[in-house]
């Protein structure tokens, strides 16, 4: 049987059918994290530090324990002893320390104790009965200040091998890469611009707060229901933090109300398990919005220096960047990724990038869509825009002139395979938006963006039913409609209707390991695994047909949902539909399933180009986004509507990051804006329609050519909007967010 995985003509792929979970989600019956209930269930609540940095001298839980409704109180002593290691090697220790403080509270909102009680109100009341004695320590929340010689040390010994001698202990990881000779490149340039850029931390802002329902006995067996991007990582981490065996903890992923990277780790889940073990009853914990802002994982904030040399014709002769990112009180700020992504769109002879991972008294940063890349693009693409203005060059032409393509040696090292940056730039140039006239007071900005994308461990299982329908089990939580794309890909291979395939997000007990829904990997990796699993089932279907016909299996091929005799047997028998084979599969060899387990390593990098128009009120500094176009290479769009949705969502989040979203810390190191009233995500009336152009340059690493699309869409907006605003206002904005006070101050020349 000859089967070629690769495909470019499609029946189902590329259409946009109704999603399989649509009905549940429009009727309110879909079950999200907080929608679960268990008999005998208790409610948990977590006590959090009001200090940015403090030694925990003593915790007295006796009064809380005496409360009539309280069934368990836990502190750090109720978790496993996990070994400390520097850098990211000790990630289990880092996560444990983050979900329940040890000797010190490291940020405003850091968990210090938790209770389980018979009602949510009682649990909250009981928290007030816990006495914690703190010795307040000096704190630091700003990245540059955290690197300064006099900065308070968050934790000695947290730096890994990479940090050069003599750096402050808060610098915990260091990255340096590049090629060529940047000094020689700057000497060749006709124009050199060097600027400093600053971005504040933002939050993913998913509308569903973290929530879980945990049950664990002292026999080490447990069940966990939670809203997560990856239930296997939750299983592995919780098991390590509770000191139980991984396989004894069964984790089910609820419907997930947004994640964007913020639900790739655990926060409340180990705490609920510890409470449950102690109370010997199920425990549900639901975060408040304020807890989400204070104590989950926002992005890093960044301070960056970018220097670029350009010739008069627009050729970039050298590029250099230093990127300093603080990621809270733990290692992990993606200074390395920021550095590696910064100049990735360009074909450069001389390039050098340096990244710092710095600790401060803030919550442990988590991934947020293309972590680290948007800040880098903001700095780099702003400088390029300044240079285009200065040299009187068209910003799209300059980017085309320097654009990376297949075979270009990337700024981070290797040569690119087939990539689609040039195609997105050509599409931008041809788009009516790019040539549309601007009104007075408006400015236009463009920016390119790059992201790596990811493969990751993946398991998929597909089982056929006697009536010819198929059930597909995948292990990557569906955040944005991936069950629809999985069903489309399976339908494409099996040749049965999309509607005949039921896709389930399997729990950890019913499928092999799956990496998290992150790195834009789901349509790529689970999609690839789905295709392979479907092929696996098709092989068996062909075997059964061959046996029935009494011909060799390699004389059977699969076409349009039927086994068909081929070669010398062509035309000997009528095509045999799938349902005819499955109808008696129990008596012709047993149930027919297909599966696939692997770590696909061909995710294929992704590029996008955004065009944005902004209007600035010169008297108040208020910006409105008047037009927005996203152009991005999807490789192959499986479900085009949801691909557009990813593009639009990335742009909208980028607009928030650029204009109004920020973590505001007071002098006391406490977060000042931990509600949606003051953490200002874009509302419907803030935004225009967001136009999209799907470019399709197939990824050689996927049978259908898919590239992940989830993350790249947030990379260009910060820079594209900064360029539009700067061009509209006539003054260069180098700090985010570009809030009205900042713009007005810049306009008045004192910014």
């Amino acid at each position, binding site marked *: 049987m000859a089967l070629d995985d690769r495909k470019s003509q499609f029946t189902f792929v590329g259409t946009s059918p109704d999603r399989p979970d649509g009905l549940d989600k429009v009727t309110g019956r879909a079950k999200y994290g907080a929608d679960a209930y268990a008999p005998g269930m208790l409610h948990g609540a977590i006590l959090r530090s009001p200090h940015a940095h403090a030694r925990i001298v003593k915790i007295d839980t006796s009064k809380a324990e005496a409360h009539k409704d309280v069934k368990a109180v836990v502190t750090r002593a109720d978790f496993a002893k996990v070994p400390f290691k520097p*850098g*990211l090697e000790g990630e289990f220790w880092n996560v444990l320390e983050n979900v329940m403080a040890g000797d010190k509270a490291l940020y405003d909102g850091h968990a210090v104790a938790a209770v389980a009680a018979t009602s949510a109100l009682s649990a909250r009341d009981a928290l007030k009965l816990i006495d914690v004695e703190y010795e307040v320590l000096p704190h630091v929340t700003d990245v540059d200040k955290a690197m300064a010689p006099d900065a308070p040390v968050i934790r000695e010994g947290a730096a890994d091998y990479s940090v050069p001698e003599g750096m402050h202990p808060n610098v915990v990881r260091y990255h*340096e*890469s590049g090629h060529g000779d940047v000094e020689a490149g700057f000497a060749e340039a006709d124009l050199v611009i060097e600027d400093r850029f600053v971005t504040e931390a933002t939050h993913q802002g998913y509308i569903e707060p973290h929530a879980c329902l945990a049950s664990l006995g002292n026999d080490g067996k447990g069940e966990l229901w939670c809203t997560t991007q990856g239930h296997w990582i939750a299983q592995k981490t919780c098991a390590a933090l509770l000191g139980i065996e991984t396989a004894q903890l069964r984790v089910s992923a609820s419907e997930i109300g947004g994640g964007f990277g913020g639900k790739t780790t655990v926060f409340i889940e180990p705490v609920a398990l510890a409470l449950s073990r102690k109370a010997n009853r199920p425990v549900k914990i639901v975060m408040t919005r304020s807890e989400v802002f204070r104590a989950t994982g926002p992005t890093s904030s960044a301070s960056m220096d970018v220097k670029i040399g350009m010739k008069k014709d627009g050729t970039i002769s050298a590029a250099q960047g230093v990127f300093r990112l603080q990621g809270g009180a733990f290692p992990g700020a993606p200074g390395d990724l920021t550095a590696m992504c910064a100049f990735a769109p360009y074909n450069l002879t001389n390039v050098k990038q340096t990244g710092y991972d710095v600790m401060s008294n803030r919550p442990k940063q988590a991934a947020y869509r293309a972590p680290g890349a948007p800040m880098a693009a903001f700095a780099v693409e702003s400088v390029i825009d300044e240079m285009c203005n200065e040299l009187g060059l068209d910003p799209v032409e300059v980017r085309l002139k320097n654009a990376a393509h297949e075979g270009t040696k990337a700024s981070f090292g*290797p040569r690119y395979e087939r990539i689609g940056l040039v195609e997105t730039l050509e599409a931008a140039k041809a788009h009516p938006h790019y040539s549309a006239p601007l009104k007075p007071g408006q400015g236009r900005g463009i920016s390119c963006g790059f992201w790596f994308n*990811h493969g990751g461990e993946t398991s998929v299982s597909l089982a056929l039913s006697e009536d010819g329908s198929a059930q597909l089990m995948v292990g990557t939580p569906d955040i944005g409609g991936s069950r629809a794309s999985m069903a489309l890909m399976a339908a494409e291979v099996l040749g049965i209707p999309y509607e005949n395939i039921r896709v389930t997000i399997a729990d950890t007990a019913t499928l092999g390991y799956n990496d998290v829904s992150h*790195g834009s990997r789901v349509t790529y990796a689970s999609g690839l695994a789905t295709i392979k699993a479907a092929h696996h089932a098709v092989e068996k279907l062909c075997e059964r047909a061959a046996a029935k016909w009494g011909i060799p299996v390699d004389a059977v091929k699969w076409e349009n949902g039927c086994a068909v005799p081929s070669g010398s047997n062509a035309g000997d028998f009528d095509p045999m539909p799938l349902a005819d084979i499955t109808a008696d599969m129990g008596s012709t060899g047993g149930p027919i399933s297909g599966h696939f387990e692997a770590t696909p390593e*061909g995710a294929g990098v992704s590029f996008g180009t955004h065009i944005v128009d902004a209007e600035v009120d010169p008297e108040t500094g208020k910006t409105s986004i008047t037009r927005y176009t996203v152009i991005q290479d999807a490789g192959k769009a499986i479900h085009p509507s949801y691909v557009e949705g990813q593009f639009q969502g990335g742009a909208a989040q980028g607009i928030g990051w650029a204009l109004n979203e920020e973590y505001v810390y007071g002098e006391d190191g406490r977060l000042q804006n931990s509600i949606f009233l003051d953490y200002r995500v874009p509302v419907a009336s803030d935004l225009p329609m967001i136009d999209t152009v799907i470019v399709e340059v197939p990824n050689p690493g996927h049978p259908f050519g898919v590239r992940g699309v989830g*993350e790249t869409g947030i990379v260009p907006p910060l820079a594209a909007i900064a360029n539009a605003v700067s061009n509209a206002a006539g003054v260069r904005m180098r700090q985010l967010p570009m809030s009205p006070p900042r713009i007005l101050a810049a306009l008045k020349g004192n910014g």
Partner: protein
Amino acid sequence: MVEVHLWSGLRSLTGGQQVVEVQARTTGELLRELVRIHPQLKGPIDAGVSIAVDGRVIATGLTEPIPEGSEVYLMQRLRGG
């Protein structure tokens, strides 16, 4: 033999070398050889690396083949959102 290009931050661990020649048919062998030749590379490799073979980024796999004469780059482990 395969030439492995290191990121420049690793030069301090290899006595200034940014390209290391190793004998390896798979990504796993390659990492083992690197540590054998330059024991100080154990730190970064344990911390997590990705390997680009002729432009294809291998995030974690240790069994991926490395054809003779491929262009190989060591990269810091990629993480996504």
